[in-house]
C-alpha cells in the first residue's frame, strides 16, 4: 500500500484499474448501443416490409429500396458488432483479473447480489445470449442466403472455411447455422418481444458500467447523479456510430437511414456534452478537495485526452462534421458527383470514427483522473 504524506491530507492509492478496464467499459457501452441501433433498424425495416400506417407516419415513404437495404445492413452490423464488442470487452475484463479462470465459475462463486460486479456479470451473460441469437437470425437462414451486403461477412468467412475444410460444403458450418437459424427463428411478434428484452438488457448493460463505478462513494468523479447518464448517452452514441460506420462501409452513407441515425447521434452527443459540463461544474463547486484535484487532473494531467480527445475530437468535432456533411448533402448538389459522394461518405466515416475514439477516451479519462477523497490528518 503506497500512500502519500507531506501535507494536511493523506492521499490514498487509487490506480487499480487502467487501459484494459477502460476498453471493457467502452466496448460494453458500444455493445449495448449497437444492439439498440440494430433493433431500431430492424423495426424500421419491418415497418417498410409491412407497409403499415405507422411506417408511413414514421418513415414518410415505405418504397425506398436504398432505405430498406440500409436498414437491413444497419441491423446486421449492429447485431454482429454488439457480439464482437462484448466478446472482446469480456476478454479485456478477464485479462485484468488476478484469477480469470476462477471468475468463469461465476454462477457458483458470485454470491453477493448486492455487488454491481455480480449484477453486471449476469447482465453481460443474458445480453450476450440475446445478441448472439439476434446475430444468428439476421445473418443466417434460407431467407438471408440470397441477400448481399458487407455486413454478411460472417457468412463469407465461414463459407471460406467450409471450402477449405475436409467436410462437404453442402453440409458445412454455414448450412448448419442456416438450419439452426431457420428452426429457432421466432414468429414476428415473439421476435419483437425478444428485441424489447434485448433492448432493456442493452440499456442495463450500458448503465451498469457506470453504476459499477458510481457505487464507490469515495471517488467524486464517479458521481451517481451524472455518470450513469453520461455513460448511457455515450454508449448509445458509440453504438450508433459503430453500426452506422458499418453501414457507410456497405455503401449506405447517403441513405435516409444513415441521415436519421446520424442526426439522432448528434442530438445525443449534444446532451452528453451538457451532462459532462454539469459533472465538471459539480467537481468545481464541490467542497471535497479530491473533486478539485480531479478537475485539475482533467484539464491538466489528462488535458490532452479530456479536452483534446473527448471534448474536441470525440464530441464537438463529430457534431460539426456531421452538420457540415448533412448540409452539403441536403442543400447542395455535391452528392450528385462521384467525388462528391466519396467526400460525403468519407465525412460520415470520419465522424463515426471520431465518436468511437471519444467514447474510449471518455472511459479512459474517467478511470485515470479518478481521485479518492483523502483522509484529513488529525490536528492539521
Amino acid at each position: 500500500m503506497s500512500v502519500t504524506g507531506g501535507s494536511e491530507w493523506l492521499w490514498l492509492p487509487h490506480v487499480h484499474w487502467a487501459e484494459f478496464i477502460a476498453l471493457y467499459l467502452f466496448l460494453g457501452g458500444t455493445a449495448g448501443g449497437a444492439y439498440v441501433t440494430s433493433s431500431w433498424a430492424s423495426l424500421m425495416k419491418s415497418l417498410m416490409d409491412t407497409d403499415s400506417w405507422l411506417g408511413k407516419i414514421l418513415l414518410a415513404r415505405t418504397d425506398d429500396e436504398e432505405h430498406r437495404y440500409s436498414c437491413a445492413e444497419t441491423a446486421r452490423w449492429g447485431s454482429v458488432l454488439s457480439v464482437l464488442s462484448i466478446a472482446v470487452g469480456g476478454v479485456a475484463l478477464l485479462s485484468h483479473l488476478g484469477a480469470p479462470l476462477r471468475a468463469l465459475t461465476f454462477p457458483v462463486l458470485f454470491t453477493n447480489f448486492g455487488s454491481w460486479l455480480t449484477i453486471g456479470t449476469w447482465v453481460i451473460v443474458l445480453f450476450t445470449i440475446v445478441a448472439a441469437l439476434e446475430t444468428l437470425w439476421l445473418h443466417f437462414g434460407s431467407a438471408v442466403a440470397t441477400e448481399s451486403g458487407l455486413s454478411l461477412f460472417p457468412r463469407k468467412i465461414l463459407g471460406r472455411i467450409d471450402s477449405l475444410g475436409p467436410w462437404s460444403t453442402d453440409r458445412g458450418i454455414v448450412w448448419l447455422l442456416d438450419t439452426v437459424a431457420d428452426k429457432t427463428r421466432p414468429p414476428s411478434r415473439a421476435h419483437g418481444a425478444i428485441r424489447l428484452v434485448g433492448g432493456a438488457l442493452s440499456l442495463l448493460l450500458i448503465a451498469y458500467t457506470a453504476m459499477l463505478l458510481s457505487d464507490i462513494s469515495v471517488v467524486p468523479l464517479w458521481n451517481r447523479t451524472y455518470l450513469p447518464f453520461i455513460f448511457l448517452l455515450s454508449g448509445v452514441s458509440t453504438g450508433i456510430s459503430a453500426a452506422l460506420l458499418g453501414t457507410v462501409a456497405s455503401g449506405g452513407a447517403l441513405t435516409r437511414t444513415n441521415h436519421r441515425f446520424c442526426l439522432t447521434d448528434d442530438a445525443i452527443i449534444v446532451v452528453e456534452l451538457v451532462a459532462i459540463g454539469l459533472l465538471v461544474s459539480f467537481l468545481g463547486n464541490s467542497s471535497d478537495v479530491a473533486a478539485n484535484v480531479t478537475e485539475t487532473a482533467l484539464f491538466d494531467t489528462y488535458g490532452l485526452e479530456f479536452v483534446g480527445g473527448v471534448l474536441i475530437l470525440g464530441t464537438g468535432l463529430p457534431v460539426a462534421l456531421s452538420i457540415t456533411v448533412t448540409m452539403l448533402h441536403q442543400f447542395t448538389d455535391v452528392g450528385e458527383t462521384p467525388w462528391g459522394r466519396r467526400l460525403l461518405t468519407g465525412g460520415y466515416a470520419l465522424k463515426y470514427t471520431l465518436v468511437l475514439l471519444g467514447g474510449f477516451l471518455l472511459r479512459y479519462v474517467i478511470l485515470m483522473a479518478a481521485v479518492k477523497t483523502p483522509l484529513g490528518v488529525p490536528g492539521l
Partner: protein
Amino acid sequence: MAVEEDHWVFYFDPNRCIGCHACSISCKQFHGRDADADDWRTVTHHEKGEYPEVAEVPVSMSCMHCHDAPCAEVCPTEAIEKRDSDGIVTVDQDACIGCKYCGWACPFGAPTYGDNGLMSKCNMCLDQGPGSGAGAESKNEQDDPIQPNCVSDCVGDAIKAGPQREIIKEASQAAAERFQSNDGRVVVEPFRGEENLDMVEHAATPEHAGD
C-alpha cells in the same frame, strides 16, 4: 454473534507516535512479506506550520476493520467477510478473483495486490501470511487474545487494538466523539502539537468511559 461493542477496532495516537516505522516493519516480518511488497500498515509523515515553527505528524494506518466494511459490500464473491464474532475483516484468497473492486471501495487504501493479483491486507494478526485469518478462531473466544504485532512492537503505545468497548475507554472525549461521528471506523486522537508529545491527557475518566 457479538454485539458491535465487542468488535475489535484500532486506536491511534499521533501524539505518542515517533514515526519509527516499527509497526509496518513488524507487520511485514510477521506475515513473511517481501521487503518491496506493498505495506499492510503504512507510516506517513505530515508537516504542520512553517519554518521555524514546524511540527511533524506521523500517521500509522492499516485496514481499520470498518463496521460498515465497504470492501465487503462490493466484493462479488463474498471473499471478504466482516466477522460477526470479533468484527475483524478477513479475506479468503481461495474465493478472490482479483478484480480490485475492493481497492477502490476502501476509504483507507488498505487492500494490496501481490504478484498473484489477489487481495491481501491486515487481519489483526489472526494468522500469518496473505489470505490467512479467514476461518480463524475469534479473538473474543481466545483466553488471552494475541495482540497484533504492530501494537505489541509499538515503542510509544501509539497503536492499540481491542474490543470497541475497551478501546473507547482509553480514548479522549474528542477521539471518542469523532469515532462515533465517523461511521465508527477508527479511534484517532487529535494531534495536540509538540508540547503534548510526551504527555497525553486521556479521557479515561468515569464520565467519559464508554463514550
